[in-house]
């Protein structure tokens, strides 16, 4: 019995548990008639390694696990770890001096932009071209927006999808694609949806935010989650306004008729890609400026110590509402583009799972780090699309969500600041963990002063 308490037993136990979970997670699904099938066949199903060595899946994965553990053990117990550490130490200063130089940064960004621009001409597979817009570029846009709320202001908004939905449905509405009549019974060009949606979204953001942004962080999360759910309920049930669960009618594509400039977006995703890319670049510039402005610094101050921030004249509620509204506006933007690009929209896209997906992108990339969020979104979305396009055996599209959930936990345990963190965020997290900074998250409001 004592043995079960020992550290070795615990470690082995965790490894075995991890192995079991991963095996089931990546294995074949269950089904209605035999719900336990998924569990059993994850271990018993026969798989083969490139046609050779057929073996039960459980055994195969055990072998893979064993190899990984062995490799890690060898790495840790031999000179290998020391050598890698040494190499990192010699490379790190040189790497830093290169990345700090502003001119090199500019070149780097120009290069990335160049690649982004020529990408649709290099990748011509129709699946990927469509995915580039609706699954990658749009998600990057959304992630950058949520990063302002979660990363800059430190507010957990789980109802982000609601603003996205409002943007999309506004587009449908003003172009006359909803049962609800377009304003003044005049079908507008889809581009007009942008300012209208922004206004609607910001109003709803402020209306939601003013009463709720005073709440503690975890309560805010639940309330925003509820708000997202309410919007979904309304979308699904107000048939006469939103088209209910069947959704909208056909939405006309974007078009510009400004004097000599005439362009109609059509079914081809590539023009939409460039439209979205344009907005992404715009947002990147604007939000980067925001981060290094007085507003950005106020957010940092509120995040680090709200009471001290108040004492130097910063109004926390005002800046939180600003962040919320900006995040909502970017979601609204993305919604308008989605509305214009998709022929039809319906409520199934706009669920809590969507909000969580965007959250994963922000957390994985690095909350508060614009570059991290972009890189993180690109990585996750590209991998997801790849898995959907060429699924490995037994993979269902919805399995992705399982991996994302596990990823969130893993990130919090191992690298809470993200894969490309903002330096300041990483410093803040380290400070809280070391106990040298107060944990502002559960918002010690101004009524909790210090004792007499």
């Amino acid at each position, binding site marked *: 019995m004592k043995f079960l308490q020992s550290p070795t037993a615990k470690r082995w136990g965790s490894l075995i548990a991890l192995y079991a979970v991963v095996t089931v997670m990546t294995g074949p699904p269950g089904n209605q008639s035999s719900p336990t099938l998924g569990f059993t066949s994850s271990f018993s199903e026969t798989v083969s390694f490139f046609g050779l060595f057929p073996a039960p899946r459980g055994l195969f994965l055990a072998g893979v696990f064993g190899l990984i553990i062995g490799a890690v053990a060898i790495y840790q117990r031999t000179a290998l770890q020391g050598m890698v550490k040494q190499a990192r130490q010699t490379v790190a200063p040189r790497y830093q001096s290169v990345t700090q130089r502003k001119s090199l940064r500019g070149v780097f960004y120009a290069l990335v932009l160049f690649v982004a621009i020529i990408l649709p001409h290099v990748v011509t597979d129709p699946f990927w071209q469509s995915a580039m817009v609706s699954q990658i570029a749009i998600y990057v846009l959304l992630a950058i927006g949520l990063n302002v709320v979660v990363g800059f202001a430190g507010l957990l908004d789980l109802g982000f999808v609601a603003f996205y939905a409002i943007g999309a449905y506004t587009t449908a509405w003003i172009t006359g694609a909803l049962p609800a009549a377009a304003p003044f019974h005049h079908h507008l060009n889809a581009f007009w949806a942008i300012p209208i949606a922004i206004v609607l979204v910001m109003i709803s953001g402020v209306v939601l935010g003013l009463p709720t942004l005073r709440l503690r962080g975890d309560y805010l*999360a639940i309330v925003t989650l*509820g708000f997202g759910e309410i919007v979904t309920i309304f979308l699904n049930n107000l048939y006469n306004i939103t088209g209910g669960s069947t959704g909208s009618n056909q939405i006309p594509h974007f078009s510009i008729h400004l004097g000599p400039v005439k362009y109609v977006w059509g079914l081809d995703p590539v023009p939409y890609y460039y439209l979205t890319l344009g907005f992404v670049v715009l947002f990147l510039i604007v939000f980067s400026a925001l981060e290094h402005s007085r507003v950005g610094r106020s957010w940092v101050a509120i995040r680090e110590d709200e009471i001290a921030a108040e004492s130097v004249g910063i109004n926390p509620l005002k800046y939180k509402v600003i962040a919320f509204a900006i995040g909502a506006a970017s979601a609204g933007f993305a919604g308008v583009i989605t509305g214009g690009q998709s022929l039809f929209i319906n409520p199934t896209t706009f669920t809590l799972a969507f909000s969580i997906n965007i959250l994963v992108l922000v*957390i994985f990339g690095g909350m508060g780090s614009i570059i991290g969020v972009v890189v993180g979104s690109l990585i996750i979305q590209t991998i997801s699309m790849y898995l959907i396009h060429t699924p490995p055996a037994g993979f269902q599209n*919805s399995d992705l969500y399982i991996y994302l959930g596990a990823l969130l936990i893993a990130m*919090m345990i191992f690298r809470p600041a993200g894969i490309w963190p903002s330096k300041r965020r990483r410093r803040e997290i380290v400070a809280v963990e070391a106990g040298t900074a107060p944990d502002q998250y559960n918002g010690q409001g101004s009524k909790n002063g210090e004792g007499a």
Partner: protein
Amino acid sequence: MGGFFSYFSSHFATLDHEFWPLLVGGLATGFIYSMVAIGYTMVYGVLRLINFAHSEVFMAGGFASFFLTKWLVGSGTPSAWQSVLYVVLGVLAGGLAGAAIAAAVERVAYRPLRRRNAPKLAYLISAIGASYFLFNLAAKEFGRINFAMSPPFANHALFTFANAPVQMLDVLTLVVGLLMLFGLDRLVSKSKLGRSIRAVAQDAETASLMGVNIDRTIAVTFLLGGFLGGAAGYLFGLKFGVVYTMGFTPALKAFTAAVLGGIGNLRGALIGGLLLGVVESMSVAFVNGAFTDVVSFAVLVLVLLVRPTGILGESLGRAA
């Protein structure tokens, strides 16, 4: 203006007529909410954390008891004594599965963060991740349809209270709910274990200096909350069947109930659950089915804005 009044008067008429059935139904649902709310409230008490994954604890209890009931009952009709046994086993199965999942979540998603003294935001995100993970894993493994659970007894109306038929299932929910809540209350206020839980809820650092094993106490808190939540899943499943999404809405409402009664306050969870169940039930007279969720949400927002400490006030530190 007249239309406005007639709308309300017709709805009040429905309420008046259906009052007792709605009340009974509301109380039964309310007990389920209370049992789940306990899980939220206890974990919040000791960790100051909303355990998002509690909805999956509820769901796990539902599925575990579903499998057990399916295996036991099959397609036969059990005798009276067998029924009682099956129900007890169902409650146990649900409770144990719930407790197991809750403990696993604590071990995997929260304890490593405690070791590192992570900021609270990290716990919340980890909780969301755990919930999402379990939710989608259940979808994968169990499929997406609703499995009806054949109750191991004939669910006829036991008696009639005013004009409300009170069904066997409602009585069962009331009885199990009362027993468990009462038992837990005794445990927390009288036993040594309960004292350590209350101590950790009040001041974890001091408690550990006094010799309380924090890890174990927190684990037990999750186990207890998980047991009640899982058992509630069984009761819920008997009425509505089990499906991978079953945890989401009831858990959100249970959280509302916990806040309504006073987060961290055990008796508050009971009161909040019953109150919310009844309010929600009565609102059926006024709004269409799907919109009752909106009503619950509105209650949550109102409570948080007007009296965030809830009806009975926050505390796990005191016995009440």
